[in-house]
């Protein structure tokens, strides 16, 4: 048992040392804890949205936005009914990460449908939570 443990300790040290050699590529802002807390307390959805928003702002400020983060944040806004702002973040993800463009194009189309439905009902009052909503209305996925 002691041997297993020693082996584990040595491997851990190596892994960590290897990790230390390079600076982290992205500013994740505890993305792992954010996700886990969300699964543990699904009722506290507003906390989840806040934490993702903070992560987006901090990583943008550092110029190290990790893959998936813009989309993750956009999606919680979409679920909340703010399709217009959601589309902006899906677009940001697509602009930054070419690998995401197929998925983001689909999601933007979906969100636009949702947005139009809302307009027909004439209740576009879900926007307003976002600082930069003025840009709005980007629709096409850039190639």
């Amino acid at each position, binding site marked *: 048992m002691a041997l297993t*443990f020693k082996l584990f300790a040595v491997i*851990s040290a190596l892994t960590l040392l290897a990790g230390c050699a390079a600076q982290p590529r992205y500013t994740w802002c505890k993305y*792992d804890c954010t996700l*886990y807390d969300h699964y543990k307390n699904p009722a506290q959805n507003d906390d989840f949205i806040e934490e993702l928003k903070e992560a987006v702002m901090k990583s943008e400020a550092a110029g190290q936005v990790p*893959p*998936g983060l813009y*989309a993750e944040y956009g999606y919680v806004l979409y679920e909340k009914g703010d399709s217009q702002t959601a589309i902006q973040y899906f677009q940001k993800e697509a602009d930054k990460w070419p690998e*995401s463009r197929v*998925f983001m194009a689909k999601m933007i189309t979906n969100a636009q449908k949702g947005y139009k439905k809302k307009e027909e009902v004439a209740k576009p009052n879900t926007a307003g939570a976002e600082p930069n909503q003025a840009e709005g209305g980007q629709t096409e996925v850039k190639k």
Partner: protein
Amino acid sequence: MSRIAGLFLITFVMVLSGCAHQVELSKQEKFLAAAPRSILIVPVVNNSVDVAAAEYVLSTLSIPLGEHGYYVFPVNMVKRVLEDDGLADASLVHSSPTSKLAALFGADSVLYVTVNQWNAKYMLLNTQVNVALDYRINDAKTDDILWSHHQNMIYNSNQGGGGGGGLGGLIAQLIVEAIHAAITKGVPNYLPLANQANTLALLSYPGNGIPPGPYATEEKELSPRTDK
């Protein structure tokens, strides 16, 4: 007598791990040939007694893979979209063809993780956690397995001093203490342990892990890619 048995066991394990290594090398060749840029992390199947084990593991996959240079899809968004498509059950996701799944997201490859064991034994002076995980990455075009790995880990709370001297030993001890602190609280937090298992399984390269991804190898391309 038991010492001889122990020695024999160690030799046996070493021989076994030698064999396993060769098998996995050929699997990395497949991975290198396919050279996926993106990895779709799908919900984790949980066969263990710990009801939250799938969440520990699912939450801690993106960071190591992203830092390793791959585009990783947003984990929660993917989970929710799959649920909307009638794939709320992780085992259903794991049993559907990779190519179909990947086409939904435009992914190059899909990572499937299964938790087979996540047991904590609380004894008088020691907590022991046994973890067994299966990892598999399949190709989006061919459905082939590009890489797979079985990760076992045993964590013991009362053996904090091991690992030898030097900086490595000190760092190892710090990690162990972090995991230790998290686990001995009233409500155990297994995230550091899950993170450790994922890192060991995926990033040990050369070794059993996967090679670094495009954003690690084409460093210069990282910033101009935001074509604005």
